């Protein structure tokens, strides 16, 4: 992979980094704006407040997952278990969310806890077991899916208390999942730029051996990122369950690839050390806008896949060209 020359992603002023993306992320922003422009010319339905809120809501899940994966990719790892974790944690949350059973924090906490636990296992297997992240998280992908099916008996866990489903609703005109995504992204951006652990995440991904010889506990950093990624998957699982009002054991298929795609489109390198959550948000937006636009334009489903693939590759290609 060509290494990106500009590498100030871990810079000092996070707010600027997040809100006014630096040159590194500049051109994917350009691609995004170009697509938005084209879409608003092609269909009057695109550039409406209702639809933009719509897009925001639709990317919120992928966005939350992608923020977690950003951490993992920054250390040079990968997490394939997200989709299954979303299913598992959704099922777990739904199990505790029958009306009148427990207060609403319980299902939320249980879902996030389940995700955290699975993430912790991923991290442990990667660090102490020295198993390649691809295999460790692929294993978790299968295991968590099996657990989700087992817990739910293979059927959706429904009859969810309206308090929990409200999480999929709105607050002050903004969808709650979108608010969650914003909070998560800002917090993650701040964390990466301003904490020691954040810095260490970049160091481990940039050169693991050098990080080690600078006295950084590489296992601790890795354990942290996988656990965090699991926790965010848990959060996403709870939000999804709230949104679709059930815990679906077969939900989340392929979410891991979408999340990784958002991160990579956003300029985070798969080999680690370079990137950040600001770009990830843009990447998730790009994917979301494409999906939304193609639906609005009523592109037939075969062509939709072809066009979608081409636009994504094209956007990243443009990004490369304008950078070089």
């Amino acid at each position, binding site marked *: 992979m060509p290494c990106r020359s500009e590498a100030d992603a871990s810079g000092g002023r996070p707010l600027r980094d997040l809100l006014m993306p630096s040159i590194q992320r500049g051109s994917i922003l350009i691609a995004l704006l170009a697509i938005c422009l084209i879409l608003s010319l092609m*269909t009057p*339905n695109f550039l*409406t407040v*209702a*639809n933009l809120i*719509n897009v925001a*809501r*639709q990317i919120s*899940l992928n966005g939350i997952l992608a923020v977690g994966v950003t951490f993992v990719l920054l250390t040079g790892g990968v997490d394939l278990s997200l989709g299954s974790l979303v299913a598992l944690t959704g099922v777990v949350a739904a199990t505790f969310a029958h009306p009148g059973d427990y207060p609403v924090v319980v299902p939320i906490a249980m879902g996030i806890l389940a995700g955290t636990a699975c993430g912790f296992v991923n991290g442990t297997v990667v660090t102490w077991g020295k198993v390649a992240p691809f295999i460790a998280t692929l294993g978790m992908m299968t295991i968590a*899916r099996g657990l989700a*099916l087992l817990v739910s*008996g*293979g*059927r*959706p866990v*429904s009859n969810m208390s309206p308090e929990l489903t409200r999480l*999929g*609703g709105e607050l002050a005109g903004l969808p709650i999942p979108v608010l969650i995504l914003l909070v998560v992204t800002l917090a993650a951006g701040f964390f990466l730029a301003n904490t020691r652990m954040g810095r260490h995440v970049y160091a481990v991904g940039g050169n693991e051996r050098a990080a080690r010889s600078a006295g950084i506990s590489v296992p601790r950093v890795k354990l942290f990122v996988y656990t965090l990624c699991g926790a965010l998957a848990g959060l996403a699982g709870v939000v*999804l369950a709230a*949104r*679709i*009002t*059930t815990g*679906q*054991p*077969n*939900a989340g*298929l392929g979410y891991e690839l979408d999340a990784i795609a958002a991160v990579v489109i956003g300029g985070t390198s798969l080999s680690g050390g370079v990137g950040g959550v600001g770009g990830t948000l843009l990447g998730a937006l790009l994917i979301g806008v494409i*999906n*939304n636009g193609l*639906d*609005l*334009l*009523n592109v*037939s*489903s*075969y062509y*939709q896949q072809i066009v979608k693939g081409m636009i994504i590759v094209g956007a990243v290609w443009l990004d490369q060209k304008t950078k070089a």
Partner: protein
Amino acid sequence: NRADSEGSRGTESESGQPVIGVSLLNLSSEFIVMIDRSMREAAEELGVRLVINDAQRSAARQIQQAESFVAQGVDAIILNPCEVEASSPAVDRGLAAGIPVVNVNSETRSRPTAFVGSRDEESGRLAMEYIAERLGGEGGVVMIQGYMGQAAQIKREAGAREVLDQQPGLRLLADQTAEWDRAQAMSLMENWLQSHGDEIEAVFAQNDEMAMGALLAIERSGWKGQIVVVGVDAIADGLQAVQAGRLDATVFQDAAGQGRTAVETAVRILRGEPVEEEVFIPFRLVTQENVAQFLP
């Protein structure tokens, strides 16, 4: 061939019970889970042992499982085919080894020893006919497809289109896949409400999961009551929604009946009793009026 001939000595399990190999379409689908349960119950009663494999929607896997059954020397095979064409070799493998094969739920091109199930086109037809009736043969319809290329998607679409062709007043505004997934259907519906909002008068989703997703999108955006939503499968959630008057209709397919009858048929074949070659279990439309009889 060798693999086949070796397996064809129908070895029985330790207890002397006959063994039936079952390859199911996908055990993470609620409908198939219901078939699975009824088969287990029937097997218990009839004193046969089931070896149940999950093909996870892959016909190639299904063929492998049939081959494994042959190698294990099961006495009969029950196949819940993933595909019409691609699952046919699974039937062929079993028959070639002298093992009776019963297809359950849907058909394959190759003729099995017996078939228990229904024709999926019918479900699409029933759902779309209901929509036509509700709209008085006039109005905009959208269709949410299952995973493209899969037998159920193709057949349900075919059935629905048959009705659309007969009803010139019904306009298909858009159709798009949501891959059987509730969350995807929800997003898709949200998008459609943006682009076609006031034109959409009915939604046909090829399964209840997607229908529930569309329903949630419609409810959340306040279009409730103006759009007819119909699904297929009559899963528990769907039935409850019909009862509550949220979902307008779904199409019931008797999973329990299919599973039970399939096992019974296989056992009768093993006992040398006569069986019907094809048992069609019809679909039934479920609306608020008759939902009570389908609720557990």
